[in-house]
C-alpha cells in the first residue's frame, strides 16, 4: 500500500470499538469499488449477471458530511436550477452527536461563545458553490473584520432546521483554536447567498449546529464577500497553483461583475465608435441576465484594454474584440476572452442584452393597441394635471373603451423616451397613460423602454377631441369627493341660514343661525319660522339641533329625538353632513327614475353648482359650493332648500358658544318630548 511521510498506522489491526468508530463515520469504499465487489460476489455465488443493476446499492454508512452535501446536491438537481435554493432539512437527522436542536439552543448562542474567546482564534475562508464545491480558500484572514460585520448586522432570526433553506453559494469561515487556548473548540460559519447562515461548534468531537437568517437577505452575503474578497484580490496572492489562480479569477470576476451591475447606471450603456466623439445610447434589457452571461464566459487577465468601439455600462467596459475592463476602487482591471472561439458568443450576448435606444421610429397601430393593459376594465379613468404625490386626480367615465383605443391608434405615433416631462402633464390613466400633450405611455405590464408621441404636433387637438369624446368627467365622483372634503375645508363657521320646505301640502320657512366648530366636531343650528298647512292656520316653529361628533339631538316645537349623525336621512339640518345623504339619495333615485348623472355649472361668482339628474329629466338635487369647496346651499326635489345667507369661514375671532351644554339641554328636552307630538 501507498506509504506516506505521515501515516495513521496506529489505527491498523484495531479493536472492534475502533473499527465501529471508523466505519460509522468514514466511507471506506467508493461506489465504483462497491460495484466491482458486488459483481465479484455474484460471480462467486454463481448469480452473476452482466445486467445486474448494482448502482442502486446504497451504502449504509458514509461520511455524514458527504451525505448531507450529496442530499443537497440531489435536491438542487431535482429542482432543476443550480441557482435555486434548497432545503437542508435532512441535515439534522445526521447529526453525529445526536443532540437535539432544543438542547443546542439551550446551550446559548454559538456566536456569543466564539465572540468571548475571539482573541484565541485564527480564521480561514473558503468560497463554496453548489456546482463546483469549494472554489477558493485563504488562510489566516482578518478575524476582527468578521466580528465587526456580525455586530453591524444586529440580531438575526434563528430558524428550526426544517425551516432552513440554503442558497447555491456560500462564504465559509473556519475559526481555529490553533494553540488550543480556547479548549480546542472550533467553530465554522457558513453564510449563503440568500442570507441564511449556519453556525457549527465542534467541542472535542461533540458537534452542535444552529440555523439562522439575516433579514436583509442577499445583501449580507455580498457585504461579507466584499469585506474579504476585495482584500484578497488587491493582495494579488502569490504561491498559488495555476488551477487556484483560475479559481481566484472566477471569484474576483464574480465580485466585480456583481458590484459593477449593482448600480443604477448599469441599466444604460453607451457605445463609443472609434474616432467619434458622440456616444450612442443603449438600454440594458436584463442586467442580471447580462451579468450572468458575461460571468459564464471564460476570461483571463489582460495587460491592456482598448476603449475604441467599446460599450460602457457604469464601471464596466466591453469592447468588440472580447476585452473587458472593470474599474473597482479606482483601479482598472483588464480581462480578455480566454479563447477567441468565444468571441461570437460574446458578441451575441452583447447584441441580446443591449438594445439600441432608437427613438423616433414609427409605431404601428398594433403597437399602440398593445400599449393598453389587457386587464384594464375600460369603465373608469382618472385625470391628473401632474404626477405629484399630493395632486389629486379627477374621476372620468370612459363611454366606449374600444372606440377610444382604436381612434387613438389610428393617429400617427413615433417612439419616444419614457421620461419625457410632457407625458406626465394633463394625463389620463385609462389602461395606458394618455397625455393631452400628445403622448401615450404603455401600461401593459413589464418594463417598457419607450413611450409614444404623436408624429405630427398638429394631431394634438385631434387627440384632445378624442379624449373629450370618449372620457367624460365623472361628476358624481367629483361631487361626492367635494362633499366629503367640504367638512374639512374650514375650521370654523358662523352665519345665518334660511331653510324652506315646500312640498305643496305643509310648507315651512325658517331663518336662523349656524355655528360650526370643526376642530371639535361640534355644530349648532337654531331657527325660528312658521308652518303653513292647507287647512291649518299659520303655526310658529322653533327648530334646534346640535351635533357632537357622531351624535345629534333635534327639537322642534313639541317634538324631539336623538339621532346618529351618520344616519343619511337625518342630514337636512346638519348643514355639512350631506355626503352619506347624497349617496343614499342618488342610489334611491337611480332605482326609481333610472341612471343618475351629475352636471357641473361654474357660476359667475366663482361658485360651482352641481345638479343631479336621474332618468330622462328628473332633477334629483342641486348643491352649490363656493370657490374654496365649502357648501353654501342645497336643494332637494321634495322642496327642501337650505342656504347660508350670511357666513364667515375661518374667522380668527371665532369663539363658539357652549355647544356641549346646548347639546345636553336639547337632549333632556328631547327625551321629555319623545312621542308627545
Amino acid at each position: 500500500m501507498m506509504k506516506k511521510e505521515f501515516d495513521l498506522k496506529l489505527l491498523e489491526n484495531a479493536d472492534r470499538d475502533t473499527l465501529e468508530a471508523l466505519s460509522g463515520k468514514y466511507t471506506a469504499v467508493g461506489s465504483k469499488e462497491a460495484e466491482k465487489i458486488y459483481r465479484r460476489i455474484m460471480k462467486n455465488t454463481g448469480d452473476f449477471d452482466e445486467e445486474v443493476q448494482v448502482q442502486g446499492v446504497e451504502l449504509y454508512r458514509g461520511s455524514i458530511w458527504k451525505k448531507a452535501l450529496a442530499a443537497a446536491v440531489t435536491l438542487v438537481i431535482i429542482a432543476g436550477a443550480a441557482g435555486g435554493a434548497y432545503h437542508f432539512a435532512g441535515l439534522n437527522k445526521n447529526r453525529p452527536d445526536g443532540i437535539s436542536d432544543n438542547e443546542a439552543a439551550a446551550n446559548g448562542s454559538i456566536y456569543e461563545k466564539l465572540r468571548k474567546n475571539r482573541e484565541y482564534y485564527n480564521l480561514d475562508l473558503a468560497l463554496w458553490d453548489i456546482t463546483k464545491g469549494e472554489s477558493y480558500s485563504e488562510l489566516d484572514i482578518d478575524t476582527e473584520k468578521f466580528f465587526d460585520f456580525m455586530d453591524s448586522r444586529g440580531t438575526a432570526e434563528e430558524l428550526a432546521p426544517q425551516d432552513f433553506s440554503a442558497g447555491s453559494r456560500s462564504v465559509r469561515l473556519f475559526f481555529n483554536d490553533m494553540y488550543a487556548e480556547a479548549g480546542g473548540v472550533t467553530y465554522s460559519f457558513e453564510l449563503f447567498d440568500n442570507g441564511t447562515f449556519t453556525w457549527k461548534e465542534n467541542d472535542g468531537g461533540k458537534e452542535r449546529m444552529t440555523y439562522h437568517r439575516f433579514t436583509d437577505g442577499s445583501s449580507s452575503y455580498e457585504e461579507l464577500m466584499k469585506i474579504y474578497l476585495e482584500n484578497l484580490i488587491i493582495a494579488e496572492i502569490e504561491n498559488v497553483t495555476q488551477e487556484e489562480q483560475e479559481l481566484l479569477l472566477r471569484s474576483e470576476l464574480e465580485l466585480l461583475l456583481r458590484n459593477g451591475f449593482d448600480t443604477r447606471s448599469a441599466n444604460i450603456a453607451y457605445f463609443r465608435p472609434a474616432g467619434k466623439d458622440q456616444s450612442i445610447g443603449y438600454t440594458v434589457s436584463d442586467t442580471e441576465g447580462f451579468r450572468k452571461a458575461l460571468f459564464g464566459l471564460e476570461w483571463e487577465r489582460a495587460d491592456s484594454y482598448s476603449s475604441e468601439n467599446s460599450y460602457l455600462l457604469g464601471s464596466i467596459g466591453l469592447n468588440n474584440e472580447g476585452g473587458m475592463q472593470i474599474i473597482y476602487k479606482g483601479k482598472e482591471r483588464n480581462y480578455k476572452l480566454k479563447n477567441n472561439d468565444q468571441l461570437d458568443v460574446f458578441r451575441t450576448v452583447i447584441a441580446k442584452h443591449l438594445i439600441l435606444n432608437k427613438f423616433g421610429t414609427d409605431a404601428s397601430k398594433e403597437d399602440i393597441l398593445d400599449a393598453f393593459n389587457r386587464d384594464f376594465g375600460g369603465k373608469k379613468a382618472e385625470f391628473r394635471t401632474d404626477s405629484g404625490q399630493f395632486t389629486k386626480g379627477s374621476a372620468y367615465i370612459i363611454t366606449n373603451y374600444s372606440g377610444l383605443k382604436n381612434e387613438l391608434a389610428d393617429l400617427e405615433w413615433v417612439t419616444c423616451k419614457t421620461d419625457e416631462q410632457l407625458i406626465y402633464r394633463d394625463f389620463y390613466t385609462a389602461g395606458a397613460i394618455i397625455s393631452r400633450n400628445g403622448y401615450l405611455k404603455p401600461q401593459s405590464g413589464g418594463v417598457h423602454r419607450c413611450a409614444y408621441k404623436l408624429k405630427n404636433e398638429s394631431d394634438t387637438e385631434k387627440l384632445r377631441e378624442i379624449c373629450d369624446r370618449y372620457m367624460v368627467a365623472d361628476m358624481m365622483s367629483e361631487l361626492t369627493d367635494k362633499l366629503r372634503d367640504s367638512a374639512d375645508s374650514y375650521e370654523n363657521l358662523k352665519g345665518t341660514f334660511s331653510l324652506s320646505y315646500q312640498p305643496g301640502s305643509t310648507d315651512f320657512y325658517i331663518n336662523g343661525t349656524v355655528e360650526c366648530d370643526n376642530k371639535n366636531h361640534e355644530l349648532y343650528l337654531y331657527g325660528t319660522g312658521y308652518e303653513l298647512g292647507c287647512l291649518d292656520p299659520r303655526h310658529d316653529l322653533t327648530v334646534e339641533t346640535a351635533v357632537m361628533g357622531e351624535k345629534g339631538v333635534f327639537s322642534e316645537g313639541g317634538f324631539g329625538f336623538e339621532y346618529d349623525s351618520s344616519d343619511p336621512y337625518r342630514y337636512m339640518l346638519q348643514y355639512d353632513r350631506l355626503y352619506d345623504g347624497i349617496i343614499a339619495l342618488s342610489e334611491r333615485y337611480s332605482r326609481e327614475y333610472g341612471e343618475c348623472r351629475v352636471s357641473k355649472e361654474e357660476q359667475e361668482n366663482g361658485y360651482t353648482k352641481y345638479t343631479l339628474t336621474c332618468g330622462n329629466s328628473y332633477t334629483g338635487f342641486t348643491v352649490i359650493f363656493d370657490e374654496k369647496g365649502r357648501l353654501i346651499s342645497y336643494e332637494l326635489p321634495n322642496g327642501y332648500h337650505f342656504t347660508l345667507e350670511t357666513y364667515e369661514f375661518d374667522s380668527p375671532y371665532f369663539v363658539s358658544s357652549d355647544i356641549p351644554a346646548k347639546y345636553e339641554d336639547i337632549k333632556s328636552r328631547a327625551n321629555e318630548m319623545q312621542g308627545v307630538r
Partner: protein
Amino acid sequence: MKHSEYQELLKKDKDKAQKALFGEYLNYVYTIVFNRLRSCGSREDTDECVSDVFTDIFASYEYRPDPDSDLKGFVGTVALRKSAAYYHRLCKKAGTVSLDDGNTGEVPSGEDISEAAETKERRRRLLSLIDSLGEPDSTIIIQKYYYGRSSREISEEVSLSPAMVRVRSSRALKKLRKMLSDNDISV
C-alpha cells in the same frame, strides 16, 4: 437490519435481500478487512477478501434458524476471521494478533492485554482529535493518511477540487500534528 427482516426479505426476493445486506454492511466489512490487510495487502486483495466475506455470509446466513441472532455481530465475526486468514496467507508472519481476532486460538497474556488496552485508548484519542478537525478536514485526513486515497479520489467524496483537497489536507495535517504533539500521541 435485523435477522428477521433479512429472512423476510429473502423469502420474497433473494437478490433484493442480498443487495440490501450488502449495502448495509459493506462499509463495515471493508473497514474491518482493510484495517487488517492495510500493512501488506493490495487494494485488490482487500476487494477479494471483502467479496469472500459476503459470499460466505450469503451462503450460510440464510439457513441460520435463530431469528434473534445478531446479524451485525455475525457479519463482523466473518469479516474478522476471513481477513485474519488473508493476513496470514499474504503476510506470512504472525506479528501481533488482535484480541478480537477470531482466528487465533492463543490466550493473550496479561502484558498483552495491558498493552492492547493502552493502544486502544491511544486510537480512541487519535480518532477524537481527527474528528475535532471538523469536516471536510477529518474525512480528508482519514482518506489520505489512512486509506491512502489520492486527492482526486477524495475530491469526489468531499466535493472539492483536487487542488483544494491538497491545500486543505496540508493545513489539516499541520493542525493535527500540533494536536498530536500536545497530546503526546505518536502514530
